[in-house]
Structure formats: C-alpha cells, structure tokens
C-alpha cells in the first residue's frame, strides 16, 4: 500500500474550500452563530420572565434612555471605524489601520465606562440581583445577566483588538486577522441592537 502525502504541492489536485474563506474566518463565523444562539436564549428567557411576571418593573428614566442611545451611537460608530481599519489594513496602510483600530478600542472602552456608570446608578437606586424597589426581583437578575454578558463581550473585544493591533504592528498578524476580529466586533454591535429595544425601550418609566 502506498502512502498518500498531502502538502502544498498537492494543492492543485485537492478539492477547493467549500466556502472560499480562510479557516480562521470560518471558525469566527461558527463562533458568532453559536454566540447568537446564546444571546437569543438569554433574550427569550428575559421575554418569558417579563410575560409571566405581573409586577414586572419599568425603571428606566429618560436619563437611562439617553445614555443607552449615546452608547448605541458609540458602538455603531465603532463598527464604522473598525471597517476603516480593515480597509486600511487591506491597502497595506499600517499606520492608518492601527489608528482606526485603536479608535475602535477607545470607543469600546468608552462604551464600557458608560455601561458601568449606568449599572452603578441603578444599583444606587436599589436594583439588585434579587430585589428592587419597583417590582419583581427577577428583573435585576435578567437585566444584569443580559447586559453583563454583552459587556463581557465588549471587554473581550477590546482586549482581542488591542492584542491583534499590537501583533499587526509587529508583523505577527496580517490584514486577514484584523478582518476576522472585525467580524466579532460587528457582532457585539449587532447584539446591542436587540438589547436596547427589548431591555431598555420596553421598560421606560411613565
């Protein structure tokens, strides 16, 4: 029996990639899809609790809604700056790519700070994981779970983008790596598009 050795020289006889993208990018897409199911489950559980609880609170004052809108503006804008970073990296404009990625990282940090400020304000008003002065205690647990999971993703993205940007500067990572992590960042933005209406806008204090 003869051994079959597969290598770069055999690439011409091998089947082409079914999705015509790199393995890194495919893995990131698969992660995003599974993460979308996780966030979906969190939001469905939130919806279940909201439906099934008669005294579900509506605690968000105008200041919180304005804060959420500012956070949306920051996160959506950071997606645009990330796109500019990818474009610059594709054009081999290293300094411009680094600048745009660091702007994205800065926007992510600003988002996290505003989010923590929002949390501290609500905690100061009496919101806890199992109690609050407005109604069902389940609200705090679900609110902190959903926004906490999202905030964890934002902080993870900030760390990942910083590592990739520094690696790109040193030549360890290429433009493909930046594009792969830009997918993650856009996904974090995408999740926020559902969190704002479902968690904040459906619970405005009147």
């Amino acid at each position, binding site marked *: 029996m003869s051994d079959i050795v597969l290598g770069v020289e055999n690439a011409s006889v091998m089947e082409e990639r079914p*999705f015509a993208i790199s393995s890194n990018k495919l893995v990131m*897409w698969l992660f995003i899809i599974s993460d979308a199911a996780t966030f979906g489950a969190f939001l469905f559980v939130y919806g279940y609790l909201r439906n099934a609880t008669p005294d579900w609170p509506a605690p968000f004052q105008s200041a919180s809604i304005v804060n959420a809108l500012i956070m949306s503006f920051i996160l959506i804008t950071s997606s645009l700056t990330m796109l500019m970073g990818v*474009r610059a990296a594709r054009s081999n404009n290293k300094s411009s790519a680094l600048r745009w990625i660091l702007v994205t990282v800065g926007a992510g940090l600003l988002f996290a700070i505003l989010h923590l400020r929002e949390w501290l304000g609500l905690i100061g008003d009496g919101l806890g994981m199992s109690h609050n002065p407005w109604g069902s205690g389940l609200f705090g647990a679900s609110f902190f779970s959903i926004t906490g999971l999202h905030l964890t993703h934002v902080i993870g993205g900030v760390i990942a983008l910083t590592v990739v940007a520094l690696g790109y500067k040193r030549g360890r990572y290429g433009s493909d790596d930046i594009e792969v992590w830009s*997918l993650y960042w856009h996904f974090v933005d995408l999740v926020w*598009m559902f969190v704002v209406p479902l968690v904040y806008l*459906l619970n*405005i204090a009147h």
Partner: protein
Amino acid sequence: MTGQEKQVGSMTTYLIVYVFIMAIAVVQVVFAYQMGPQLPFMLLLAMIQATLAVLFFMHLHRERSTLVLALIPAILFVLFMMNMIWSDSFRLLTMRPFLK
C-alpha cells in the same frame, strides 16, 4: 471603483448603512415614547438593523452563497424553535393567584 474597493466594499455604502442604522436607533426611541411598549415593531426595526449590519458591515452579501446557507438557516431555525416558550409564559398569568 478600484479593485481594492471591490474587495473591502465602498466607503459610501458603509456610510449610508451607518446613517440608516443610527436613524433606526433614534426612531426606536421616539416611537417607544410616542407609542409605548410595542414589541413587534421594536423587534422588526432591530431585525432591519441587524440584517444591514450582517450584510454590509460583516460583508456577508459578498461571501459565497454556500456559507450563507450553512450559517443563517441554522441560527434562524434555533431561534424559531425557542418561540415555543411563549404559550407557557402566558399560561402562567392565567393560573392562581394571578387569574382575574
């Protein structure tokens, strides 16, 4: 359009999508105050935002259709199946002590 722009997308397109997504975010807030909690409408606007982000920001519209078919129907199916919980969530409100 240059070859580079074809590869990574036109900046004009990105800006239009960005403005559109931001506009929807503002419309959501305005409608939340004007109309009160309207879940279907809010969800529809969020889905439009998400679709734009996936297609243009994440470049899915330029990927091979096999990738789209491998990813999107699977997640939509999972999210669709999660909807079976709603009848139970409403049922709880018709039980004691909440039954009126």
